[in-house]
């Protein structure tokens, strides 16, 4: 009945690749590779030892297999663990020294790095494959005592902070991919907010995978000291390639007394093509510790990319009165698979957590919410509220909800609700009658469905994310 304009369906718009000369570590996961990474990063000895300890542990640990999306066996010996543009070998002193090809790449991605065109109010750390290319607004932040730099730089310049906190939330023996990351991580961001400081701008890292046959293993560490506040964002894209690429990041957050960390992700790694070929395996470990009393960690994620997404940003609520939040949108289309959710571990008294998850599944995709709420014996007067809603488009896709709920405290309350349904026909009819075509109507209704999560994102990114929600579902109805 309706003419669909096939040309209007947008392809993955970040699918280009940058032709640039690289320095790579030798292929394979060996002690040599780890030593290579450590040396090229000019790391102190303790760091190499730490990596090797993780490597030893890796030899005896196994890949997890309980998650819903199964993936073909990864040949860890057939991957590059380090790849960086040659021009980055000696770290450029200023942006003028950075290879123009890199500047151009980020410009194409909508992340201008030059002084004049920078995003106002957002400091950016740009990570290209295994190195950080540039960090903006550094001077302005330094004046306030805020450290925002590549983690490789922090290992050299702030070893005490790194030693104290690295691996303190995600121990090196946590699980296979976390251990792998600990052994071979290359770059990522480091943030330290000094006591009683409110970070004056959004901090953000933009991750880009470019090289082929390369895994990206970034590591992010954020410490909010007593009474401080920071809002941090990450964005990710990768070129379209037929092969599957592995991305196994570790992110650790630490909030001390009265501190607050807001961590937002817009994940748009290459999802693979319509037949399910290629795409990123996004196996990420993200965990925050509310160590101090009255601290707060809030995760917001918009997951639209990747062939397989497998991540559970979690909060360990140790401090009394601490608060953990998780807001998530996961959209899967074509052959994408997502298994995502959170863990809220209540240990302190009067701890509160809130989980809002919106899953949308179309095409032949599979979308799972998996979560744990655990209120311990000592966590008196604690509270959790969870709301998981799933939307299905078509009967070739799946939506699953797998919550684990444990309550060991009689003064604490857990409430969990979940629904699954399809897009309401009446809503579609109403929008159509007001002149919106099918795709616009779907985009509008889905954005409405996701609103509780979208409104958690900082302004600049909320608009982007809204568009992304629409684009990700194009071609899924008709």
């Amino acid at each position, binding site marked *: 009945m*309706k003419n669909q304009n096939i040309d209007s369906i947008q392809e993955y718009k970040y699918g280009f690749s940058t032709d640039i000369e690289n320095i790579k570590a030798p292929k394979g996961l060996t002690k040599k590779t780890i030593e290579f990474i450590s040396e090229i990063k000019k790391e102190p000895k303790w760091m190499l030892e730490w990596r090797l300890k993780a490597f030893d542990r890796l030899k005896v640990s196994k890949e997890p297999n309980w998650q819903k999306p199964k993936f073909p066996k990864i040949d860890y010996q057939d991957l590059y663990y380090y790849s960086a543009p040659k021009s980055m070998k000696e770290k450029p002193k200023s942006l003028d020294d950075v290879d123009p090809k890199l500047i151009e790449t980020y410009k194409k991605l909508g992340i201008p790095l030059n002084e004049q065109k920078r995003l106002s109010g957002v400091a950016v750390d740009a990570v290209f494959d295994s190195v950080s290319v540039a960090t903006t607004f550094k001077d302005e932040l330094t004046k306030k005592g805020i450290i925002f730099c590549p983690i490789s730089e922090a290992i050299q310049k702030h070893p005490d902070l790194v030693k104290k906190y690295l691996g303190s939330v995600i121990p090196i023996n946590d699980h296979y991919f976390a251990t792998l990351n600990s052994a071979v991580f290359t770059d990522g961001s480091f943030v330290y907010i000094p006591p009683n400081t409110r970070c004056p701008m959004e901090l953000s890292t933009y991750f880009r995978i470019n090289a082929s046959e390369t895994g990206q293993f970034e590591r992010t560490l954020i410490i909010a000291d007593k009474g401080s506040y920071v809002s941090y964002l990450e964005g990710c894209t990768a070129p379209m390639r037929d092969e599957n690429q592995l991305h196994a990041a570790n992110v650790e957050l630490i909030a001390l007394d009265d501190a607050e960390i807001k961590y937002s992700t817009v994940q748009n790694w290459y999802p693979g093509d319509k037949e399910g070929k290629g795409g990123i395996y996004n196996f990420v470990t993200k965990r925050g510790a509310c160590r101090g009393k009255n601290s707060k960690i809030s995760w917001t994620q918009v997951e639209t990319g990747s062939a397989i997404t497998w991540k559970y940003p979690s909060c360990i609520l140790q401090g009394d009165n601490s608060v953990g939040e998780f807001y998530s949108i996961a959209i899967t289309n074509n052959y994408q698979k997502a298994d995502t959710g959170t863990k809220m571990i209540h240990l302190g008294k009067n701890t509160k957590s809130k989980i809002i998850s919106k899953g949308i599944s179309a095409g032949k995709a599979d979308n799972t919410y998996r979560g744990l709420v655990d209120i311990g014996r000592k966590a008196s007067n604690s509270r959790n509220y969870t709301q998981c809603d799933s939307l299905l488009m078509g009967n070739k896709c799946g939506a699953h909800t797998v919550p684990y709920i444990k309550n060991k405290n009689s003064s604490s309350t857990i409430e969990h609700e979940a629904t699954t349904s399809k897009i309401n026909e009446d809503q579609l009819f*109403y929008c159509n*009658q007001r002149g919106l*075509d099918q795709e616009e109507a779907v985009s509008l209704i889905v954005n409405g469905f996701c609103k509780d999560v979208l409104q958690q994102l900082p302004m600049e990114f909320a608009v982007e994310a809204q568009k992304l929600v629409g684009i990700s579902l194009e071609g899924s109805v008709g």
Partner: protein
Amino acid sequence: MLEVKNLKATINSKEILKGLDIFIKPGELHAIMGPNGSGKSTLANVLSGKTGYEISGLLKYKGENLEEIPIDERAQKGIFLAFQYPTEIPGVNTSNFLKTSLNKVRKARGEKELDTLSFLKKIKVISKELGIDERMLSRQLNVGFSGGEKKKNEILQMKILEPNLIILDETDSGLDIDALKTVANGVNSSRDKKKSFLIITHYQRLLNYIKPDFVHVLANGKIVKSGSMELAEQLEKTGYREIS
């Protein structure tokens, strides 16, 4: 404006409309009255292009056959349906929705899209004219609206989109007198030579405020009687049984 001949509509193998005729010229206001289950809402749905019905017969709008035209394109061509039960759409801001809708219609008419500022200006004038509280526009579309607010919102949209054929599906039902007046005001102030109205109603009440040119009685899927305003008055006295 609208030409309907021998229109039949079937849903779930049940025939609802059984050969309906109606002819509306530009500038005319027709009222269709009928008891529950006579096919009033089905007629509104079918005219707007709602899917799920098997349809036969002639359906022409501005001389064009509507058969193959989907809902959104009919809307863009100027057919507006004020819903009996406007749908709630959570998370969607009313004013954003209106702007999207207006710009779709304007684009189809070959007009320039309105920017946010001129849109807000326009909406302000119209809501004032209709006596609608502007705060309604910043709420989620129809979510938590009272019955009256929902219907006012429909009339507001009608005013803004400036359609040519306006179908009101029992817009008067369940309204208090103030909301009823807002609806009537909206309709009366929109009447001109280029617009036609089809007002579907159960009661004569609304017709005391909106004077129709023609009144039809729908019963059992057919128009059984047509006439002027007196017909509506007669119905009010005798009920539907006498007529059908």
